[in-house]
């Protein structure tokens, strides 16, 4: 009897929490279809804000910046992080405390400290040498810095999960060092590489604070553009572009569910 009451209470609480979690997103999507320029009342369905998006060059260039930043930084982080992940695995019996601290540093450092450190540093280097002009380049550097640890840890944990004699079996079966990388290591960690790439990509797209402080005047990404628009005063176009980004996340969520189901089957 008591248990049933508890269970009903929990079920109610669960649905309430779901409402709490999705209400803000739902409101954004709802008002993106609002015919009126208001965020307080809904005045009928319209696609005008989406049409306005296509004509807004700032938004289109911000989208392009976001994509270039995410793809380029993820690729660089994948290569560097993969190497470091393998190094951590191969030399895991050594005392590598300094390396672990180094790798966790970007993860534990508060975003804001991360962002302003790099900004202050880049500004000084730029003044001294003319290099590292704030822009996409500095943003890519900053993003790679916080992506490396995630790639390294994913690759490392994949290697740790492998039977260590597999490495010996590859040697034993006539694979040269180069062929071991090509025919054994890379194919074996392929799932880890794919998920590390997608995690890096998502982290990059999601980041606002670090991008904000390392960006230059020409390199605004979508979140930076949205931030600026909010600061200037909310425009319903923001609802539309935000809805598209929410839609992309929902699609990604459904895909990830689908793939994890299929892998288990």
């Amino acid at each position, binding site marked *: 009897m008591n248990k049933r009451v508890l269970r009903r209470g929990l079920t109610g609480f669960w649905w309430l929490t779901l409402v709490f979690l999705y209400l803000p997103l739902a409101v954004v999507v709802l008002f993106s279809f609002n015919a009126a320029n208001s965020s307080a009342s809904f005045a009928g369905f319209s696609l005008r804000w989406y049409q306005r998006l296509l004509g807004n060059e700032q938004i289109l260039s911000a989208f392009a910046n976001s994509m270039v930043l995410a793809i380029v930084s993820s690729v660089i982080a994948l290569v560097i992080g993969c190497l470091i992940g393998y190094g951590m695995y191969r030399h895991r019996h050594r005392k590598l405390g300094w390396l672990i601290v180094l790798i966790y540093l970007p993860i534990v450092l508060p975003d804001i400290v991360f962002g302003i450190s790099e900004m202050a540093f880049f500004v000084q280097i730029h003044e001294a040498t003319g290099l590292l002009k704030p822009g996409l380049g500095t943003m890519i550097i900053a993003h790679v810095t916080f992506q490396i640890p995630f790639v390294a840890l994913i690759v490392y944990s994949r290697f740790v999960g492998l039977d260590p004699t597999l490495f*010996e079996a590859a040697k034993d079966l006539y694979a040269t060092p180069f062929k071991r990388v090509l025919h054994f290591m890379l194919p074996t960690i392929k799932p880890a590489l794919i998920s590390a790439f997608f995690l890096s990509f998502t982290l990059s797209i999601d980041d606002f604070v670090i991008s904000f402080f390392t960006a230059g005047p020409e390199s605004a990404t979508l979140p930076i553009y949205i931030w600026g628009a909010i600061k200037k005063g909310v425009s319903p176009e923001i609802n539309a572009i935000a809805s598209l980004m929410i839609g992309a996340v929902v699609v990604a969520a459904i895909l990830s569910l689908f793939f994890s189901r299929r892998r288990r089957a």
Partner: protein
Amino acid sequence: MSDTISADIADKTGVAPAAKTTRHQASTRKASAIELRGLHKRFGRDTVALDGVDLTIQAGEFFTLLGPSGCGKTTLLRILAGLEEPDQGTLVVGGKELTEVPPHQRSVNTVFQSYALFPHLSVRDNLAFGLKMRGLPAEKRDAKVDEIAAFIKLGDLVDRRVDQLSGGQRQRIALARALVCEPDVLLLDEPLSALDAGLRAQLQVELQRLQKRLGMTFVFVTHDQDEAMVMSDRIAVLDGGNIQQVGAPNDVYERPANAFVARFMGHDNLFAIHHSEGDWVETEIGRLRLMPGEQRDDADGWLLVRPETLELGPEVPEGYNRMTGIVRERLYRGSRIEYRLEVNECMVMAVASNLGQRIHHEGDEVTISVCPEDLVRVAA
């Protein structure tokens, strides 16, 4: 699983034509002898894995490295495979010096204890891996894989995924993956230890037959002396990084070189020799006569009395040693009966075949007789 194995074992006369042709090809393979000279290997500062090992393994021999964990047998195997470099010493296989040749350039393959099948590859690709790494074109690889699959009777296993295989199936694939490369020497690192007892016994027989059919040099590592005796042409017993004895299974079992080998081969009846004089020795269990060949003047050492050589009963045949003991414990094992006898305050094990002889009871006093030929002196 077990069906395919027993089918393979039953196939002595070569019923399947495919198997016949492969057997012919298999027997033309050249086997290689192995020469190990003065091998030393140390891990860290204090752990001595090999302490000067000299060993010759004949071409086409089923050779077993036997010993407790930490005795150096696995290190020795890994040096043969090239996965470990010796600190000192040389390794020659088939007349070629291999000491510093990396593993991928050695015509030596290993069946690993954990099987080490590549999880990202199908069974077929696992089998073809070594051939592919050696640069064999795809059609030839396929032909060789099919050949070995028929030879080991893998049947439809070839088309499965690695994670769909049972332990015994994985073992067979690992074996096939190594054999398909036609190495000069095949190394087997406790390949049966992960299997249950019944399957292990079957595979012991199967492996031994396979080796005879191929005529390939097999170097097998195990800590199980029964397994070593069933399968091997010769056994090397290792302890503390040193070879204690090398010999045929019956040599090692019946004439152990020292007390360690005797104990490791499962002998419990070892008695300290206090004093020896001519053919006679004074031991913990009394004064006994040995064969003239066994006589040595030094007193230290042990006398090995194998339990199955003791006869219990009132009659003592001519020339036999005679002792008296009291039955302290009796274990009924069906085909045989084990006794623990107290002789001179020492415990002596005896095993009698259950032939309907008189069964002795706990507390009975019995006469024990043993032929001098069956008594073996063992160095300390």
